[in-house]
């Protein structure tokens, strides 16, 4: 029998009304890479944070190397040889790499000696694991990929034998993710134990030895990776069979609903973000805007939605102009049939401190349905929210719960339900499934296609090329603020990739 590095017995944890972990049992074998998958909000981060002593379990036991240990705080976890790379990095942004690595492991009261030692040790780790990073660089000046490297170095510096990584690839480019996996393989070959949390099935299949699946706070299964399949894991995660691709019929485009003409947008520093963009969006079609993040898609969406002023150009909604260069009013646009699902739901789409039902009517609160004279009709609002919750399968089904306590996928459903259910003529959606789990992705995609089939015009911006290709009837590719090409959805990934990188587009524009 192999050695067990970590064993969790009966771990239970609630955050107020949210039961995040329910009687969890888990065994992780020494020297393996153990994957933990589950939808967003399944309780993966919570479980690992308990193992790391960041949260305290309400009940349950933790065994390290077969011996029960009381992990009351991260210090105890570090002492037990556990290191963790958190989903949201725990770095001090205006400190150097070296200072971040040292923090909490400084050795002596006066920094000087510790600094010298840390420098030497860091060099050694860098060489050993090919984890180069300039020790004197400020964290805020490093790209996220390197920031994550610092987090890994922090754990190794503390001599972790068991390394937990929480959704490490979410912030990485494919090449960076490959490099990370090589590092993990190397750590494993040195006998370290790795727990890898992700919701990406492909990664689990590629690198793990064993995989445990969590669903709604419960540990539902553990499988040997070699003996399972993507389909089985997806089903375990969601609790039912999922379609990993979307089915949709022919589009039947109708009249032009949204006409964008020569739209140009500059950012606060005067840099052109959207450069003379023109296109038409018709009823009954989905137009996808593909592009690497930061090529003007966000600004384009915001300008159309009336929350960012354009410097020139025009936009017509249902044939009537929107004052995009002046004072376009999002509330008025909403009344005219334009619904907007913003990219950044936390800051723009929701007030996280509000109850679910309050967010469910945000921006529509002056709708007569929700009013009693000048007062809000709370009963009507809650009733409506409950209906929405049932239709969109928002969990937990509690309209009084603070929105911050919903998982990302469910928060997104709250926004979608709000914007879709008014029957808008034009729906513009930014990153519909960012941070959303497999089950909810399927649901959201279906809903978007349903909207199209009802004859709505849908403008979709996403950095997930797969999503764009699956949903769109036409694809516009943006690069450096310009639309550099239009393609059918059956264009190959390679072809779109070249456009997105700005290689093909320049040629096309020149011709």
């Amino acid at each position, binding site marked *: 029998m192999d050695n067990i590095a970590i064993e969790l017995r009966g771990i239970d944890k609630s*955050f*107020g009304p949210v039961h995040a972990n329910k009687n969890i049992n888990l065994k992780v074998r020494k020297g393996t890479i153990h994957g933990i998958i589950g939808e967003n909000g399944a309780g993966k981060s919570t479980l690992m944070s308990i193992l*790391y002593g*960041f*949260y305290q379990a309400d009940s349950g036991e933790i065994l390290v190397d077969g011996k029960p240990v009381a992990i009351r*705080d*991260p*210090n105890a*976890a*570090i002492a037990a040889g556990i290191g*963790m790379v*958190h989903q*949201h990095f*725990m*770095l*001090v*942004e*205006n*400190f150097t790499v070296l*200072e*971040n690595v*040292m*923090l*909490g*492991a*400084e050795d*002596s*009261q*006066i*920094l*000087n000696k*510790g600094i010298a030692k840390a420098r030497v040790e860091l060099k050694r780790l860098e060489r050993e694991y090919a984890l180069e990073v300039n020790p004197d660089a400020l964290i805020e000046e490093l790209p996220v990929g390197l920031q994550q490297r610092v987090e890994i170095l*922090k754990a190794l510096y503390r001599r972790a034998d068991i390394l937990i990584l929480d959704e490490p690839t979410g912030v990485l480019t494919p090449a960076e993710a490959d490099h990370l996996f090589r590092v993990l393989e190397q750590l494993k070959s040195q006998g370290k134990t790795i727990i890898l949390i992700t919701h990406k099935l492909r990664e689990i299949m590629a690198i793990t030895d064993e995989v445990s699946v969590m669903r709604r706070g419960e540990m539902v299964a553990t499988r040997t990776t070699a003996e399972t399949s993507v389909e089985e894991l997806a089903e375990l995660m969601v609790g039912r069979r999922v379609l990993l691709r979307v089915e949709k019929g022919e589009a039947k485009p109708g009249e032009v609903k949204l006409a964008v003409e020569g739209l140009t947008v500059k950012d606060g520093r005067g840099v052109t973000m959207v450069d003379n963009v023109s296109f038409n969006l018709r009823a009954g079609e989905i137009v996808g805007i593909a592009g690497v993040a930061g090529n003007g898609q966000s600004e384009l969406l915001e300008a159309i939605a009336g929350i960012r002023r354009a410097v020139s150009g025009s936009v017509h909604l249902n044939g009537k102009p929107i004052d995009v260069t002046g004072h376009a009013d999002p509330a008025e646009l909403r009344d005219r049939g334009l619904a907007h699902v913003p990219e950044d739901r936390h800051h723009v789409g929701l007030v996280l401190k509000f109850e679910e039902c309050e967010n469910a009517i945000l921006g529509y609160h002056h709708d007569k349905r929700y009013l009693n004279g000048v007062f809000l009709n709370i009963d009507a609002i809650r009733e409506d929210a409950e209906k929405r919750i049932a239709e969109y399968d928002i969990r937990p089904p509690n309209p009084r719960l*603070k929105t*911050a*306590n919903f998982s990302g996928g469910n928060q997104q459903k709250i926004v979608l339900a709000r914007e879709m259910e008014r029957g808008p003529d034009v729906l513009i959606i930014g990153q519909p499934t960012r941070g959303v789990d497999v089950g909810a992705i399927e649901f959201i995609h279906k809903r978007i296609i349903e909207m199209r089939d009802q004859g709505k015009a849908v403008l979709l911006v996403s950095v997930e090329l797969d999503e764009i290709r699956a949903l769109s009837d036409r694809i516009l590719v943006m690069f450096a603020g310009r639309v550099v090409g239009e393609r059918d959805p059956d264009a190959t990934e390679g072809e779109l990739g070249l456009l997105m990188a700005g290689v093909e587009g320049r040629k096309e524009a020149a011709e």
Partner: protein
Amino acid sequence: MDFFHVIVVLLESTIRVSVPLIFAALAGLFTERAGVFDIGLEGKMLGAAFAAGAVAAVTQSVWMGLLAAILISIALSLVHGYASITQRGNQIVSGVAINFIVAGSTVILGEAWFRQGGRTPALGEGSRFQTITFPFADSVREIPILGPIYSDLLSGHFLLTYVAFAMVPISWWILYRTRFGLRLRAVGENPGAVDTAGISVIWLRYRAVICCGILCGFAGAYLSLAMTAGFVKGMTAGKGYIALAALIFAKWRPFNIMLACLLFGFLDALAIRLQGNPLPLIGQVPVQLMQALPYILTVILLAGFIGKAIPPKAGGVPYVKER
């Protein structure tokens, strides 16, 4: 009086009025760098000044007075700490509350104990700080330029004045060269990083708040045991707020703090000097304008005209792990 002499006198009084500002601003530096905003510097300083005046009057010992000032100021800091760190209350509200409580209770207690209209009894020689005269200060005064600078500007201040200026590099050293300082700055930027590194956020912030208490104690003691001989009600007269402005103006950096406090102190000294002395060409400068200048300068800074003041990222936000 020749021009040079005027300058020396002006700078000498600049130093005198800057001392409590330096102490208080450095006090604010310690808590704010740890992420606990403190608008209660004023109240702590006032409480400390009262404690110093009262205890020194009763015990006839300047040292007991200083000790009392520090203890009271620490106690008030702990109240602020309990409200904002342990109970995760609003830091501004807690600070303002302390200011009001102290402003009222010093008068009530002073009146109850000493019956002098909120004052503490005037302190005699032994129960207050004396100025320190450097060796040969008298004999070198006649040397041009260097003489007056040595004898009038550098020599002849209170012990606490020298302590205040020494605290500037000491604070810098603590913040940037010690483990405590590294952790303190980290907890003001991202308490999560400190927590996951195995350090107690709560204890660390309490220690920062205690440092603030000690320094505010010095500031208060300086007011009632050195600058004047005894406590007078409301004697801080907004110095805590000026110190806060200096802290922001200095972008939360020790040496900048000293310069900002000297600048604000200079404006204060100048205002006193110009009272009733119209300037050639410009005429009478309203005192109110001079007194408002520190705040005006700080607002201009905050508006982004003089660089940018970036406060500690986690400042003012209680550390909450579980929503």
